[in-house]
């Protein structure tokens, strides 16, 4: 007598909002295509009980001036490309990036503060070099973020850039700039479901529609708090699928930034032999961090190493096949 196993399926009532980055000429921008994330009606890659209309996207991080503080493994992999953000963006697109994330360091190579007009010019140069939609992050200090991002938002009106990071203590100026010039924002909260919700509410209160908000739950790299990010993302996704409207934003994870900061990704000498080869270890560190966060609900993973971009693109293709 053959056995028939009844597959248990959850009946989710909520879904993730769809958020579209970039605008084509017809839509008031200059992008050759747009990228839409979100829309899931089930947990990551569980096609047997719901839809995943848009695959997660790999974004490649570039910076506006030479990142001398980056791991030697990254400096070697990218070479001279790192000197020129436009060339860097072109190279990232060739590697198969779905999005470009430009990080404004806030200072140029001599340690001088970057003027806002120069930051805006760099963003336009990058927009000119690639047809991909763009994410732009400030240096991470409230005053400088506001100064630079407002200038960038004005200079690129209608492009639907994603601007960040908006935090609970500093979101108004960036949200206002996004509202005024047709952009999106990234809402960033420190590994906490309620703080993430609260910030989405505050941003929404300023009348920025939620289909223009991405959510950054704060990424912990493998071995450096990954499990906290992993679980808070699972909790946010479960809350979203059970109908909690203010948790239904697509999630973006700055995997490369966190992973490549760690000793495991930077140091070749004076570490235990059991750590193995620096280059392979570092790429694996970024790969494993990205994989775990895709499995817990990431819609955009921002990566740094060209090899990881290929591995994670292939992973997403295989997870989306069903």
């Amino acid at each position: 007598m053959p056995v028939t196993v009844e597959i248990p399926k959850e009946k989710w009532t909520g879904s993730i909002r769809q958020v579209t980055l970039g605008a084509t000429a017809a839509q008031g921008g200059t992008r050759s295509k747009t990228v839409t994330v979100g829309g899931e009606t089930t947990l990551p890659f569980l096609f047997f009980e719901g839809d995943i209309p848009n695959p997660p996207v790999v974004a490649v991080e570039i910076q506006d001036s030479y990142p001398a503080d980056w791991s030697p493994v990254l400096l070697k992999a990218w070479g001279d490309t790192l000197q020129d953000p436009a060339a860097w963006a072109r190279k990232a697109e060739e590697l198969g990036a779905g999005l470009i994330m430009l990080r404004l360091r806030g200072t140029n190579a001599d340690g001088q503060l970057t003027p806002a007009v120069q930051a805006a010019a760099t963003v336009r140069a990058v927009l000119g070099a690639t047809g991909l939609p763009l994410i732009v992050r400030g240096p991470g200090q409230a005053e400088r973020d506001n100064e630079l991002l407002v200038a960038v938002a004005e200079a690129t009106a209608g492009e639907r850039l994603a601007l960040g990071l908006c935090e609970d203590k500093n979101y108004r100026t960036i949200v206002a700039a996004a509202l005024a010039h047709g952009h999106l924002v990234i809402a960033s909260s420190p590994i906490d479901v309620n703080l993430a919700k609260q910030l989405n509410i505050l941003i929404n209160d300023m009348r920025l529609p939620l289909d223009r908000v991405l959510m950054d739950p704060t990424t912990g790299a493998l071995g450096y708090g990954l499990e906290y990010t992993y679980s808070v993302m699972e909790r946010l996704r479960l809350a979203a699928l059970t109908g909690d409207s203010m948790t239904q934003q697509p999630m973006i994870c700055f995997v490369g930034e966190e992973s490549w900061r760690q000793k495991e990704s930077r140091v070749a000498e004076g570490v235990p032999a059991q750590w193995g080869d620096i280059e392979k270890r570092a790429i694996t560190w970024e790969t494993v961090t990205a994989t775990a966060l895709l499995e817990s609900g990431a819609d955009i993973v921002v990566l740094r190493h060209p090899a990881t971009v290929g591995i994670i693109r292939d992973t997403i293709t295989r997870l989306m096949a069903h």
Partner: protein
Amino acid sequence: MALSGLEIYKLLPKTNCKECGFPTCLAFAMKLAQKQAELDNCPHVSAEAKEALSAASAPPIRLIKLGSGEREFQVGNETVMFRHEKTFFNKPGLALRIKDTEAADVVAAKAETVNAYSVERVGMQMTLNAVAIENASGDVTTFANTVAAVRARTNLPFVLISPNAEALKAALAREGGHKPLLYAATAENWQAMAALAKGSGVSLAVRSRDGLDELADLTKKLSEAGVADLVLDPGSRDLSGSLAQLTQLRRLALKKNFRPLGFPIITFPGEVADTPEGEVVAAAQYIAKYAGIVVLDHFDPAVAYPLLTLRLNIYTDPQKPISVDPGIYEFNHPTAEAPLLTTTNFSLTYFSVAGELDSSGLPAWLLICDAEGMSVLTSWAAGKFDAATIAKAVKTTGIADRLSHKKITIPGLVAVLSGDLEEELPGWEIRVGPREAVDIPAYLKTWS
């Protein structure tokens, strides 16, 4: 079907004798209902009640033990779908596969490498757990000889892989009695495999070629044949399909209490991928999502270390975060002139600060105080990270003897402690550092 606590209570002696370790029969019944206690702990339960309760009291995912002595490991007994709901308990065993068609020196080298590999993280030694040996040659004697050759080099438990029960029987005779797992019973060979597993008292893996229906059909037959310790291979060899199958198996066991599939799962990431990188990705998925055993085809320390770290992260109890040992930590070879910073022993706090100190490239001393494993603000609010705590750590560690200065930097979030600390540590200059770890490198540059 699972029984409720009250239903279980009706079947217990109701004497409140406390011999089970719980204050009342009702409390014991509640624990049984939550699968957090074993019925065997009640010495007075009647035979009828035992029979009625055995189904309800067993863990939904059976605990399977492989190996013996120091290298024994156990998998199964999981109780939640998501780690934040409680915790994941038994870390999946990582194994390396060796084929009996490989040259003798390669076999020996792999066995020795797996046996010896051990890497430390947050004070814990992380190791691989098993060697999988596959009868790729199809030859019984070659297989048994390979098994014996690997056993000569390690006490790790084995996963013995062959479709041929005769080959497994010959291998069992040579593996040294370390409780291996036999892989695998299938629709074609299950009778012979059941006889072998039952006769030798070892665990048996079950492989389906046709999804969960065939898998449940096979496990029922094997259970009826008297093999209790099973491990499942639901069959899918693609990344997406196996994620679905492993999720479904976990749900069937936990949410439906579906006994025929209430066993740990064995996975083969190398069979899911065309490249070593793809194997790493699949292994990471299986560690996070529900595998009991992960059999790798490639060993590289640069890959093993990240995978073992992922396993440690995912299996950390969210309610009991790993704390680091209080004491002095050195960064970038500090001299007596280097700055001294202090913070709490919460693991994430430590790693955030340590990561920044490390990557700054600047020498520094970090004094970790015993704040009962809580973060800076939490422990301060709870009175576990105050001036007395910091002063005690300064004195007991003798850090002053290693410095040419008396300056200590406290976290910016607890700037309020400066005054009290000046009183507790006469002669010291108390400095207030950044509120966030990310600003530490900039702070160090200005420190003098």
